[in-house]
């Protein structure tokens, strides 16, 4: 017996090893900047190796649990980008706290969990990745444990998270019992002969368990409280990282495991997802309208974005998945950018109420401009990234371009477009506050450099993807093809 090829999961290993080094390093140096920068270097190293793997076209199979293909490489890259941005915005945010070693180590373990989910090709690998991320993020939410809001948020998150994990695991175990396999591909093959009542319950449990991660209504209630209570970089991490991981898991279980099986009872699932998508996007947008705290507003807008992404599971074509992946990527930059700005402003003592953003354009012109770009992109205003990804995602609902018009999902797309229009209202309100209204003070704000780097990266990405989406779309296409064929 020979050893498996560890180079295939080298990016994950680099992140894990860095995570293990960090506590020791902190113990030795007691310097938060050092551990922060070492974490960033670890992520960059991992990213560089990943980039080489993408360019070199590496693919393969690690112990038949983890697969390396176009899909997993792209998504792994996405998660690394998320954690890179989160680390940049953490450097200043947590400088006055304690336990930096734990903070950075947990962030990195959570990330490696997400990277494993991206590669998983069976239920066990998937579950382990999910749990690694969940456990780490419970502790991260509780990071400022003396802050009552954070303690409350962490408790809620832990209790509901535990419940959801139990459900996911129960769903997985039923599925294994019926199909005698943990591999998604084998599950798809065996599903035709499984008892339908058991499948039903197993699917419902998995939807609920993973629905918690992706904040699907009615499993969304924790999200606004937790995003509001946690340190803002961690909110960013949950909203743009952990949520995407949930979607990756949903795609793997349902697109690869269930829907590919083409059994009638299973294809009916698409209607469930359509219903969930419709409820989720509408509730998210409508409730966001009346929020006064910017983090809560972004949380509800994030719920709405989850609704848009659920369209992928309803339509369930490779083209829809292309749109879904693209939207996940653009969402990282636009929502991540918005959260990072909130974190940066909280650091320089601007509050988290939307009112506190009045007159921001005079105080910090570049930050206000970036925030407007991110918000307009979230609303889907062309020619920004959000428009391109929504365009591809929504247009998948009426069939492949050039193919016959499919009326099945037109209602859903119509609803999504209406929802986009509604969302513009609350995004534009923030822009109006920043540019039109007078603030209480017009003192200039100086945002620390690491924040500025993160904001500018997001800004360049949002505008760049909007103007030249072509290379990214073809990457997403091959990723979608890798997953669904």
């Amino acid at each position, binding site marked *: 017996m020979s050893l498996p090829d560890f180079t295939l999961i080298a990016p994950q290993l680099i992140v894990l090893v860095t995570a293990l080094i960090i506590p020791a390093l902190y113990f030795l140096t007691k310097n938060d900047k050092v551990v922060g920068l070492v974490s960033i270097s670890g992520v960059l190293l991992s990213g560089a190796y990943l980039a080489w793997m993408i360019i070199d076209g590496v693919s393969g199979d690690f112990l038949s649990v983890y697969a390396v293909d176009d899909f997993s490489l792209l998504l792994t890259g996405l998660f690394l980008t998320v954690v890179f941005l989160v680390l940049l915005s953490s450097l200043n945010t947590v400088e006055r706290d304690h336990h930096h070693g734990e903070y950075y180590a947990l962030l990195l373990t959570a990330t490696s969990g997400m990277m494993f989910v991206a590669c998983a090709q069976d239920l066990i690998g998937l579950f382990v990745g999910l749990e690694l991320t969940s456990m780490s993020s419970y502790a991260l939410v509780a990071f400022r*444990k003396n802050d009552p809001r954070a303690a409350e948020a962490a408790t809620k998150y832990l209790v509901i998270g535990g419940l959801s994990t139990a459900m996911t695991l129960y769903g997985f175990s039923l599925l294994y019992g019926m199909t005698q396999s943990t591999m998604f591909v084998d599950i798809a093959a065996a599903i035709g002969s499984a008892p339908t009542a058991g499948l039903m319950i197993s699917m419902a*449990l998995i939807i609920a368990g993973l629905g918690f991660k992706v904040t699907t209504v009615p499993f969304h209630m924790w999200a606004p409280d937790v995003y509001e209570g946690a340190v803002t970089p961690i909110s960013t991490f949950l909203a743009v990282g952990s949520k995407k991981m949930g979607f990756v898991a949903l795609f793997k279980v349902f697109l690869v495991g269930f829907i590919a099986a083409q059994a*009638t009872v299973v294809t009916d699932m698409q209607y469930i997802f359509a219903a969930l998508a419709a409820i989720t996007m509408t509730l998210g947008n*409508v409730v966001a309208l009346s929020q006064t705290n910017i983090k809560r507003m972004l949380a509800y807008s994030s719920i709405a974005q989850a609704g848009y992404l659920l369209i992928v599971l309803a339509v369930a074509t490779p*083209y829809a998945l292309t749109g879904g992946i693209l939207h996940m990527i653009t969402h990282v930059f636009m929502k991540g950018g918005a959260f990072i700005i909130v974190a940066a402003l909280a650091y320089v003592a601007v509050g988290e109420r939307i009112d506190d953003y009045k007159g921001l354009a005079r105080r910090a012109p570049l930050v206000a401009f970036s925030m407007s770009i991110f918000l307009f992109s979230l609303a889907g205003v062309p020619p920004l990234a959000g428009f391109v990804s929504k365009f591809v995602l*929504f*247009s998948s609902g*009426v069939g492949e371009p050039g193919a016959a018009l499919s009326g099945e999902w037109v209602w859903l797309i119509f609803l999504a477009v209406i929802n986009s229009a509604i969302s513009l209202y609350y995004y534009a309100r923030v822009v109006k506050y920043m540019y039109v209204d007078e603030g209480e003070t017009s003192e200039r704000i100086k945002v620390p450099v690491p924040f500025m780097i993160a904001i500018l990266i997001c800004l360049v990405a949002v505008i760049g993807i909007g103007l030249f989406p072509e290379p990214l779309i073809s990457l997403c296409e091959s990723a979608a093809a890798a997953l669904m064929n």
Partner: protein
Amino acid sequence: MLFIDYAWLIPIIPLAAFLIIGFFGHKTPEGGGYIAIIAAAVSFVLSALVGYEILSGTVAAPYVNDIVWLEMSPGVVLNFGLYIDNLSVLMLIFSSLISTLIFIYSIGYMHDQGERKRRYYTEVSLFLTAMLGLVISSNFLEMFIFWEIVGLCSYLLIGFWGFKHPKGEKASIAAASAAKKAFLVTRMGDVSLLAGLFVLLNAFGSLDFVSLFDPANIAAVDNSTLALGSLLIFGGVIGKSAQFPLHDWLPDAMEGPTTVSALIHAATMVKAGVYLTARSLPLFVQSTDVTLFVAVIGGFTAFYAATMALNNMNIKRVLAYSTLSQLGYMVLALGAAGYMMAASLAAGDVEVDHAMGYTAGTFHMMNHAFFKALLFLGAGSVIHAVGTEDMRQMGGLRKRMSITSITMLIATLAIAGIPLFSGFWSKDLILESVLHVAEGGHGAASAVFLILFVLALVTAFMTAFYMFRLWYMTFGGEEGEASKHCHGESPRSMTYPLVILSGFAALSGFLILFGFADALTFNFVDGAFVVGGHGLSMIEVLEDIFLNPFAYVSIALAVLGFYIAYRMYEVRDIEPGRYNQYGESSLYKLLQKRYYFPEFYNALALKLAYPAAMAVEQVDRKAVDGTVDGIANSITGGSQMLRRIQTGFVQTYAAFVVGGVLLVIVLIYLIGYLTGGL
């Protein structure tokens, strides 16, 4: 060298101005105003040169030049490029020309706005960029992008005085809410337009004008899909060109600076909708129902908006209603043209020589651009001098502001349709084209067009009345309250554009005698179906117009409107109050209240949308933490709170999760049952 190879520079030049002024405008004189003027003027010159090449046939129209923007799976390519034909050229020339003049005028008008001038010139430059980009886009998606930028700029510019309004806090709020209204209402149209794009992309696998207007491709597409796409696209027109029932934002948009109103009404924004209708006509004409709908919306808007202008006392609002009404005319003309073509296509007769409504609609669009820009700039000059928009406080300004009053009179004569002024020619053509359909023997549709014709005639009368009313109330009669402290004629940077525009307003109609109709054609079905151009000589055109008895009816109605306004507001021997019980009659109030449309929208939002949002929020808040928030805040100890949370509302969350699972199971079962899977 051909200038058309540099046509892409036309929108790029104002874009450069936008960037330069945005970053360095505060360091240049007039907040970057001169840069904006130079950019607009260069764009105009280039547009004119490109226009010459297209119209003279040096370059075959349409000139298409695309680069691939993004390629979607199998063979679907979205391009970014140029599509320049006679219609684009027309739009390019008058948009850039009028914008140049408005920018020059702004130097005087905005002179005392200080630091805010930079913002103004930045935004108008972007506005012009978007409009020029819109009319030379080579496909619907690219056009949509510019279309949205136009919407964004209008929002910014209408809300220009959203803070620190020269007239105080209240006016600021009005400006901000008008801007929001314009953005949201036009956005409803945009949603429809975007849906239309989806339908077309799906049906054709492309959004390029070249392939969408190819008869072979059109024939391959299901007619009902095409009709659906056309109607959705027209929904965008209804929003942008403020047609009924999405018209209500335009009067409110008067809260912006007057120069912005002139831009929106004459050169940009609302003309984009008419342009889109004209551009998409090859798709619309596949269905008689669609074109009939277009004509009805246009005809009704023309009439409906004119009624509201009759008794308004605000000089800018009267002009706003007149814009609505005139846009209705253009849409009506295009609808009539479309109907003629649709009917003949349905009958399999592609030998129909022309549908003059197309010429009429586009011709009126150009003439209207000139005289409406002039009217707004004239009104701006008056407001600048007297400091009010209320016409009751004006009057007798003829002597104090001679240049403004004479140029305004020319514009009034033009819009009222007095012979030989520009409005006369195009309005007459519109009426004729509508009558043409009514006489065409199309059954019930002919009856509808007959009604539209009568409405259009009545509108012509109303137009003459309210415009002369405006002129006499402002410049004629006794001096009003505000006129007394008028400090004379406006500065030269404001009067020169007025004089130039009055030349165009007076004379642009004569273009019809020099082959305008032939220039503005489009070929359809391999040249067998030529719309617009009918190769008539000057004499034939004149015969066509002046041997038509209805032309005299419309002239007589216009003169009658003028005469009544003259007696009421100049001689003042007819007391207007007699006819409306001195402002107490219900009809008078109905018009003042804009048919209760704003109230209706507000009620809809307040009674329906807002409570719905509140209710959902309440449920969420209450279920989540409404009851506990108060308790939680009062408790400071962490452990105590943990206990509270554990016994308190996390249970609610958990209950929801479990309830959700049950719900999903029930749903799965139901769907399985309904589709027979179980």
